[in-house]
């Protein structure tokens, strides 16, 4: 019973990591950059949804849609202003810019919403409890896991079936060749950021529905964990991010429950190191051979 309880908690936490990891992995796969500001876009999404629910009196679904819209605009703006001018620059410069952007977003949030933590309001997402035998499962857990599955299926279909999705895969494979084939690389990358940021808003709402404290640093630790999940599963791979996220969540909860609450995070990162030693490209990553 305790085992099942922990497993469900792990799946729920892992599903949140997975949705965040999708944002990292898509951007990495297509733009070949690590967008460290992604975790903070999640935080912004959660704050916008909080404002929608708490100040503007929007129904939950509207609040989520508004948050998604704002995050989409934010993501595309960040890409256009901060990353696009650096498209030809060294990858280190882009990485530093992303970290700077992360701090900028955190401090802007600090200015706008203040340092006092806010508690995310209860919505339909986390207001009811499902009883199965002795288990009590929060509706937030179920909705998170379902949302995770829906998003993964939708994204897989999008990248394999639609024209824009195919363009994305082309840019991912060979940016130069894609450009020669008439694919608008900048637009494709913008679209990637738009999708990633909209997902970030959903992740933000789900994150804060399960763990309701909202402050300017809310996105940073889940962001780092999700990045780890993306690397774990094989960065650049959509199913990999999913698998990595879910596994990471389950390992974290089991580590805490059966080994030590103090070492929970250490166990997560130790597993990552072991996996990368055995499979450097991650669980589902394709090893890329550099041709000379």
């Amino acid at each position, binding site marked *: 019973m305790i085992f099942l309880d922990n497993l469900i*908690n792990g799946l729920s936490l892992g599903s949140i990591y997975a949705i965040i990891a999708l944002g990292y992995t898509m951007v990495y796969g297509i733009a070949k950059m690590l967008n460290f500001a992604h975790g903070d876009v999640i935080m912004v999404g959660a704050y916008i949804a909080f404002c929608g*629910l708490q100040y503007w009196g929007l129904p939950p679904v509207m609040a989520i849609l508004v948050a998604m819209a704002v995050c989409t605009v934010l993501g595309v703006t960040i890409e256009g202003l901060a990353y696009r001018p650096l498209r030809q620059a060294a990858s280190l410069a882009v990485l530093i810019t992303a970290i700077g952007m992360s701090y900028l977003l955190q401090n802007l949030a600090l200015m706008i919403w203040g340092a006092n*933590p806010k508690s*995310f309001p209860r919505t339909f997402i986390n207001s009811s409890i499902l009883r199965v035998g002795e288990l*009590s499962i929060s509706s937030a857990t179920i909705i998170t896991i379902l949302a995770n599955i829906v998003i993964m299926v939708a994204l897989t279909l999008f990248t394999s079936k639609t024209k824009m999705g195919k363009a994305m895969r082309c840019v991912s494979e060979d940016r130069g060749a894609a450009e020669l084939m008439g694919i608008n690389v900048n637009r494709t990358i913008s679209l990637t950021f738009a999708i990633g940021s909209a997902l970030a808003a959903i992740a933000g709402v789900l994150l804060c529905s399960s763990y309701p404290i909202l402050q300017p640093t809310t996105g940073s630790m889940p962001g780092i964990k999700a990045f780890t999940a993306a690397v774990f599963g094989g960065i650049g791979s959509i199913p990999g991010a999913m698998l990595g996220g879910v596994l990471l969540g389950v390992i974290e*909860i089991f580590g*805490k429950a059966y080994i030590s*609450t*103090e070492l929970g995070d250490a166990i997560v990162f130790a597993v990552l190191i072991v996996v990368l030693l055995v499979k450097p490209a991650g669980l589902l990553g394709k090893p890329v051979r550099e041709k000379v």
Partner: protein
Amino acid sequence: MKKLFAVLMAAVMLMSCTAVLAEGEAVTLKIAHIGPTTGAAALYGLATLHGAEVAVEEVNAAGGKYKIELINEDDEHNVEKVINAYNAALDAGAQMILGTTTSKPCEAAGAQGYVDRVFFLTPSASSTAVTEDKDNVYQICFSDPNQGAASAQYIAEHKLGTKIAVIYNNADVYSTGIRDTFVEKGKELGLEIVSETTFTDETTDFTVQVADAQNKGAEIVFLPMYYTPASMILQTAAAKEYKPIFFGVDGMDGILSVEGFDTSLAEGVMLLTPFVATSADEKVANFVSKYKAAYNEVPIQFAADAYDGIYILVEAAEKAGITAEMEAEEVCDLMIAAMQEITVDGITGSMTWDATGAVTKTPMAATIVNGEYVFE
């Protein structure tokens, strides 16, 4: 006519006599309040200042042995500025200090006072470093770790339950300090700690900690932490339909004012606190109504501590026989000796002190009922 004149003269003489007598008896005590009355921590400094002012007015109106002259200096909750404030207070003739309000500045000023021999009574600085290695600093509030022992004592005395879970932040001295004294005192009093789990500042997921407490059948979950993680633990427990008694310490104060927090989750939560403004106690009600009349707001615990502080200083001064002529240096050692002998019944409890400067008082706990703190 002559007779009347004589009677009048006698009356006048008598009156002037009593006037002279009264003047001769009322000793002026110069007390300096030091606290952050501006800046980010002004909320606390103003509370202690206002609390002290209410008490000073009462003492002066009562016409006892002492008349108090209150000097106020602002330290802006800054470890450098507090030294300036301290020097300014001594220059103004302060004989003893009620302060400082916040821990870090109090450590700095108290250390300087130790060298200069100046007596400090802090209403609200609660870190152990405030009194450590100094004989001149006394506290009115519990020191941080002592809240753990006080909580265990309260739980045992009021028989709230015997199976206890402790969840604490092992990356934070405040939390671990309280946990240590709680576990130690709890063992002594026969409380059984069935589950002990930890978290860190980055932790957002408390499912494991809550599940462990639940599965081991804890009736009380002790939460030595600030209200932010506590609010997440409450929500996690609600999702698991786990309803033990949650028992917190002063860091829990503020949970009701978290924006967006569903206060129904905090219903029944208990916290160790010496002061609740809504208390029916006569002395408390008197203080609250005077405070409200003067400053148009409800006093917080800091104000109550400082209010008691003035009475403690007066009582100790009386015991020590402090006179208006004495310098701070002379006052210091007399006050230190007197503090260890007196017992003061204040609005935050009945207090005694030992040579460490730490206070001993009966722990009190409030329960959250309908979104308000209530004493049982």
